[in-house]
C-alpha cells in the first residue's frame, strides 16, 4: 500500500540521468564538449533507450518527458549528442529544460517516498 517501493527503484534512475545531463551541460556551457565525451555518449545511450522504451524505467522516463509537453524531439537530440562536435545554444536550452524537468520529478518522487 506504500508508494515508497514503487518510486524508490525509479528514483535512482532519475537521479543518475539528471546528474549525467548536468555533466554534459557543464561541458557544453564551458565550450569543452565534444562528440567523444564519455558523458555525452552515456547520455545519448540513455535517451535513445527512453525514445524507444523497452522496460519499466525507460517507459517511466518516456512518460515524464511526454508530460513536459514541450514537443522535445528526443531522437534528434540523441543524434546531435552523438554526432555534433559542439552543442548549440538550442541544444543547451533543450538540455536545460530536461534538467529542470528531471529535478522537479526527482523532488516529487522523493516526497512520495517519504510519505508526503
Amino acid at each position: 500500500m506504500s508508494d515508497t517501493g514503487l518510486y524508490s527503484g525509479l528514483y535512482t534512475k532519475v537521479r543518475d540521468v539528471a546528474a549525467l545531463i548536468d555533466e554534459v551541460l557543464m561541458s557544453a556551457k564551458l565550450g569543452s564538449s565534444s562528440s567523444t565525451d564519455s558523458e555525452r555518449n552515456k547520455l545519448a545511450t540513455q535517451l535513445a533507450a527512453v525514445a524507444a522504451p523497452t522496460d519499466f524505467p525507460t517507459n517511466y522516463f518516456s512518460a515524464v518527458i511526454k508530460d513536459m509537453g514541450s514537443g522535445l524531439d528526443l531522437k534528434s537530440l540523441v543524434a546531435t549528442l552523438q554526432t555534433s562536435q559542439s552543442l548549440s545554444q538550442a541544444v543547451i536550452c533543450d538540455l536545460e529544460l530536461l534538467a529542470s524537468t528531471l529535478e522537479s520529478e526527482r523532488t516529487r518522487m522523493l516526497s512520495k517516498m517519504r510519505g508526503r
Partner: protein
Amino acid sequence: MLDAYFTGSVPQLIERSRELTAKIPRNLPRAYDALAQTARSRLNNLIAQFGSLIEDQRLLDKSLRPERLRKFKRLVSELDTLEATAILALRKAQDEDHRLNDLLERITKEIAYPAVTPTVTTLSRDYFYIFPEFRLLFVPLVEGHFLLHLPDLYHELAHPILVEENDPIIEPLQHSFSKCLDECISYVQYETQKLQRRKSPVRSEYMLGTWERSWIRSWLSEFYCDVFALITAGPAFAWSHLHLAIKRGENPFVVPTVSASSHPADDARMRVLLATLALLGLRQESIDIQNAWRCFTGSLGVKAEPEYFWCYPDELLKKISTYAVSGATQIGVHVFSPSEKGTVTSVLNAAWGQFWTHPGSYVQWEKKAVEKLLEAKC
C-alpha cells in the same frame, strides 16, 4: 553568497557523512554485510562528490550555478535518504530483525529468487515497502509475530526485479512487462480515439490521459508484483490482499479522474489475482477467495461505476495475468504447489486455512506456528 555558502556547508556535510560511517555497527550477522558495504561505499562516494562542489574549478563559473545547486541538492537528498534508511536500519538492527532476515533468506531460497536477497528492517512507519537501491525491505515493528500479512514480503521482492539492469536472467520478465505495457497503452489510446471521433466531452479525454499516465508510472508494476507474489506464495497472497483491503483499503472501485494514482483499484487487483489463480489451476481456491471478496465488497455500500469497468476491462486484466505469469515462469522462480510441505510458503497458506476453519482459536495456533517457523524451522 553561493560560494561562501558552499565553503561553509560542504565541509559540514562531509563531516556528517564521516559521522554516519562511524555509526555503522561492526558486530552484525552476515545478513547485514551487503547493506553495510553499500552504505559505506555510498558514503565514501558522497564525501568525494561533496568535495568536488568546492574543489572542481569549473563549478566556480557563474554560468554553472544551476548545475552546481542541482548537484548539491541531489547529494543532500542521497545523504538524507542513506541516514534515514540504510544507516538507521543497521544501527537499530536487533533480534526481531535478525529473525526476519533469516526467514527472508529461506523464502528467497525456496522460491529461487533470481536477485540478491534484501535486508529486512522492522522500522516501517507504513506497512511493507522496499528501497530497491539499498535492497532494504521495511516491515512494521511486530509483523514477525504474525503470519497473515507476511505474503506481502513476496510482493515487495518483485519490485527490485522490475528495475534491475543488465541481467539476462531477469530480462524475460522485464520484456513481458514491456509488451504488456504496450497492450495497456494501446487500449487507452484506442478508447481516446473513439472519444475523439464522437467529439465527447474534453473531461473524459483528460480522464483517459490520467489512466494512461497511471498505467505507465505505476499500475502495471503493482499488478506485476501482485502476480509474482501469487505465483510464488500461492493463494495466501490473495487472502492477504483481502485482509489488507478490509483493514486499510479505501473504495475498492476507485478510478482516478484528475491526477494519476499510484496503486490500481483494489477490486481490479483482486480480479487479476483471481485470473492468475485460474491460470495456475487453483480453481477451488479461486472460488473461495472470490466469494469472500464479493461478500466484503458487497458489505461496503459502494458499487462500481461504469468508469471503473471502462478503466479496467476484463480482457485487459486477463492479459496482464497471462503476460506476468509467462514472464515470471521464464525467469525460473518456483511456482507454488498446494502439495508442498515444510516450506515457509506452505506455513503461510496453512495459516489462512486455519484462520477460516478455526477463527476462534487462530491466535493461539498462530503463536505456536510463528515460534516454530522462526525458531525451530519448519
